[in-house]
């Protein structure tokens, strides 16, 4: 990129000063003088019939402004991600511990708590269904009356799996189990609802999908979407956990009922009990190969425990199946995807969206296979890895796949893989050291046929300053920085000239959700398109003024350049001229995610087609007496296309690795008969500073040629995906024992 002025350089995030000084306002910091405190009454049971719900005593209490139940909802009483089967407020039955039965707005928190206690609910506790295998049986009782417990059962197949299995020299067959994982975003779910004079319902929402929130709020209140405004203030982390709505509709309903602003903030325990978790899955997988390590077939059956409601289950389990063959050229593949309702916690989006579960399976299979045939783990991966031009088992052609093998080779080089035997394998009688690798792919974008688009509005003012309106929610991942950099780069101005208006549905058009590693690409392209239009106007004016051909002109660092040399005219001069002459420097643009049109008849449904590739290698030390695992080194080599925002890219990789270490070793929601046992951050154990090794990160910048703004891809999800299998394979290398269940706790290691 010849003109790179801001793109690819370290730059502070717009708004960083607000964060480091404590001025940044998150939902819980929003305050109005007449604001009330909202709270929800949640079910104490995993499954129960509501025999009686009496809120009359609570309603009469002093300081209580509203108590609402399902009967008070003017519109639809349901969440709507894909399927409206989860009620906002329970009607006749509660189906998991997080079902809410009533909502209260009171003058303060303690009055709201007292009102919750004054609500009389009589439950008839019903036997719940907690085992997905049991729930799948034909005669199982229905979790949701009238609805089949099996909410998804699809099989995708390509090639001839049975023939390949019959001809294979080696077969590895294992059954895997993964856990419920909790996002543990530091800011719990929160929203503030408010009604303006003209009836406009404004909701400040800690979310990833402001326009989808708006739709859901409008549905619940039975008002047009134009009468709902969703604003995202600063958001304290999300990782997929705020993709699906949480308390936004309840805050709006309480504001509507009281005609006063109401804030609704889940406490940590409520947060853990109520919001969607990463799906726990049981995966039976058969992998077949020749004796020299050529993969022949993969056959898998996935059973996901969805909890009682659908949420993003179809989408997540579909993605899990899409990547079950890994970044490999295997041509014979069959995956059966099953998701089942139970009375366990609800499940949905979490960074990686099914891909971490898939990677734990396929990368464990690869190491088991390598051991069985006596092949090096690096070699078997290089032998089978996809390349540019490979038509994958999904039917999708990898258009840029250099990074698959490049990331493997680079990671191996950093740790000196071939000479790893030289290190001390048994530093003490009870200690064993091991090395493990995992390599993965994960798509960017929602997937084919899923309406993957985003719009932005860009304006340059007469003084050369710029406003960028984008509804792409920034939960910390840094999209605001990326979009500002792209706008600054294309308009030839400094970052400081760009002011990004954070997501506000009344000010900005729909950008879709900040999910699926998509916003850098889809909103990024929209920004470039809008900036190009403004830039063109500026250059046209400059050509007229200077009498120099437009092709020779460019805008860099706030100045007009002629043949690459600075000219006396500034961008500001040109903007003033545009304003004086009546050329509006205003552009709105829509960008669609680019999916190729020529695909074979058998193509995986909703497939992604631009890939993040990465390899991680873990060096671990296992204490055979305690089962304790120390991750001594973690090498992470990631391809991100061209890097726009290095701070964000490194941050995403480091943070994803840290979450991956937690997913691998300690994080597990313990659920017994539908009751979550660990409901605090004390006993849901996420990695702390001392648990994390110094990470060795290498960013490969292989420009993505397809649909990528300045060659850049998304990076958010990939980093968490290979960590758990890399650690698993390192443990296997250290103690010679394969593990098939996450997390790999000390107890499981001792029992292995």
């Amino acid at each position: 990129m010849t003109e790179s002025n801001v793109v690819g350089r370290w730059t502070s995030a717009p708004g960083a000063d607000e964060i480091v000084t404590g001025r940044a306002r998150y939902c819980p910091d929003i305050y109005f003088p007449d604001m009330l405190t909202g709270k929800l009454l949640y079910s104490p049971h995993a499954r129960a019939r509501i025999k009686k719900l009496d809120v009359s005593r609570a309603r009469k209490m002093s300081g209580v402004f509203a108590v609402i139940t399902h009967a008070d909802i003017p519109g639809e009483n349901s969440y709507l991600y894909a399927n409206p089967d989860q009620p906002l407020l329970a009607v006749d039955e509660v189906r998991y511990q997080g079902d809410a039965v009533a909502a209260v707005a009171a003058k303060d928190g303690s009055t709201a708590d007292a009102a919750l206690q004054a609500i009389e609910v009589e439950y008839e506790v019903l036997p719940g269904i907690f085992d997905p295998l049991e729930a799948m049986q034909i005669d199982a009782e229905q979790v949701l009356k009238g609805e089949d417990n099996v909410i998804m059962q699809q099989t995708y197949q390509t090639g001839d799996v049975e023939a390949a299995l019959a001809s294979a020299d080696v077969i590895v067959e294992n059954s895997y189990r993964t856990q419920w994982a909790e996002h543990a975003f530091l800011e719990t779910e929160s929203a503030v609802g408010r009604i303006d004079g003209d009836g406009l319902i404004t909701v400040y929402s800690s979310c990833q999908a402001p326009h989808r929130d708006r739709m859901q709020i409008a549905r619940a209140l039975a008002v047009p979407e134009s009468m709902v405004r969703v604003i995202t203030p600063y958001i304290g982390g999300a990782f997929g956990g705020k993709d699906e709505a949480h308390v936004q509709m309840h805050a709006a309903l309480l504001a509507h009922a009281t005609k006063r602003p109401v804030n609704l903030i889940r406490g940590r325990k409520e947060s853990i009990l109520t919001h969607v978790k990463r799906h726990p899955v049981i995966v039976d997988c058969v992998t077949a190969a020749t004796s020299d390590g050529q993969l022949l077939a993969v056959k898998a059956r996935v059973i996901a425990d969805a909890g009682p409601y659908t949420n993003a289950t179809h989408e997540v389990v579909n993605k899990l199946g899409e990547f079950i063959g890994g970044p490999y050229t295997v041509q014979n593949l069959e995956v059966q995807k099953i998701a089942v309702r139970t009375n366990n916690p609800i499940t949905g989006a979490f960074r990686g969206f099914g891909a971490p579960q898939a990677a734990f399976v396929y990368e464990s299979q690869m190491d088991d296979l390598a051991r069985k045939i006596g092949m090096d783990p690096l070699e078997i991966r290089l032998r089978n890895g996809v390349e540019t031009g490979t038509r994958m088992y999904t039917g999708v052609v990898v258009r840029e796949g250099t990074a698959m093998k490049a990331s493997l080779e680079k990671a191996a080089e950093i740790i000196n893989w071939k000479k790893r035997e030289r290190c001390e394998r048994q530093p003490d009688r009870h200690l064993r050291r091991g090395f493990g690798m995992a390599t993965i792919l994960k798509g960017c974008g929602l997937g084919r046929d899923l309406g993957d688009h985003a719009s932005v509005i860009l304006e340059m003012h007469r003084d050369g300053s710029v406003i960028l309106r984008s509804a792409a929610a920034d939960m910390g991942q840094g999209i605001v920085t990326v979009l500002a950099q792209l706008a600054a780069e294309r308009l030839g101005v400094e970052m400081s000239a760009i002011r990004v208006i954070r997501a506000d549905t009344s000010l900005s058009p729909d950008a879709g959700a900040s999910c699926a590693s998509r916003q850098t690409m889809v909103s990024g392209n929209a920004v470039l398109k809008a900036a190009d239009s403004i830039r063109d106007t500026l250059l046209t004016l400059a050509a007229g003024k200077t009498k120099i051909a437009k092709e020779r002109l460019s805008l860099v660092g706030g100045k007009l350049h002629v043949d690459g040399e600075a000219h006396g005219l500034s961008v500001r001069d040109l903007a003033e001229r545009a304003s004086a002459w009546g050329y509006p420097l205003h552009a709105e643009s829509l960008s669609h995610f680019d999916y190729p049109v020529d695909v074979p008849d058998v193509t995986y449904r909703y497939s992604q087609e631009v890939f993040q590739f990465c390899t991680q290698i873990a060096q671990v030390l296992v204490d055979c007496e305690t089962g304790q695992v120390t991750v001594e080194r973690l090498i992470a080599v990631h391809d991100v296309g061209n890097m726009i925002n290095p701070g964000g890219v490194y941050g995403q990789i480091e943070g994803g690795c840290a979450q991956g270490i937690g997913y691998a070793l300690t994080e597990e929601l313990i659920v017994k008969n539908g009751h979550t046992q660990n409901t605090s951050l004390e006993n849901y154990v996420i990695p702390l500073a001392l648990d994390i090794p110094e990470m060795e990160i290498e960013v490969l910048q292989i420009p993505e040629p397809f649909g990528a703004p300045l060659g850049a891809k998304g990076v958010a999800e990939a980093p968490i995906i290979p960590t758990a299998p890399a650690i698993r394979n390192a443990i296997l290398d250290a103690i010679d024992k394969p593990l098939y269940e996450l997390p790999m706790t000390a107890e499981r290691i001792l029992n292995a």
Partner: protein
Amino acid sequence: MRPVTEINIQLTVNGETERVAADTTQTLLHVLREDLGLTGTKDGCASGDCGACVVLLDGQAVNSCMVLAPQADGSQVTTIEGLAGNGDLHPLQRAFSETWAFQCGFCTPGMLVSCHALLESNTNPSREEILTAIAGNFCRCTGYQGVVKAVMQAAAELRAASSTPGTGHD
């Protein structure tokens, strides 16, 4: 409802004297956020686990959700809002911003205060000492690498600023 007992307490918060009639069961965190409007200090768990609410209480980094308001009577409190002097960012604040020591920023107020407390007593901390100082500050976004970098950078800047030119300091 239980009876509420209020007592008058006096605190010096970021150099300003504040008098608050506080419910005896309320926490220092509540007083800061609700009574004084200092919402920079965050509530991440209300149970002393996450460190988002860390403030300096008489120079010590504490979880303000675990301190009852009456316990803080007569104390000096420094919050995130008090780190920048005269409107200039503290070197630590600048370093956090430059090194991307945060993403969402929700843990940052507590994290910055913990790091500030460390630098008050140790202007040349090792990686291990930094990690120990922030062992009680959860960050779910960054993996802590940027925080270590930021503290190292700020420490170097503070050392450079405090050393007298020409004295041949090591």
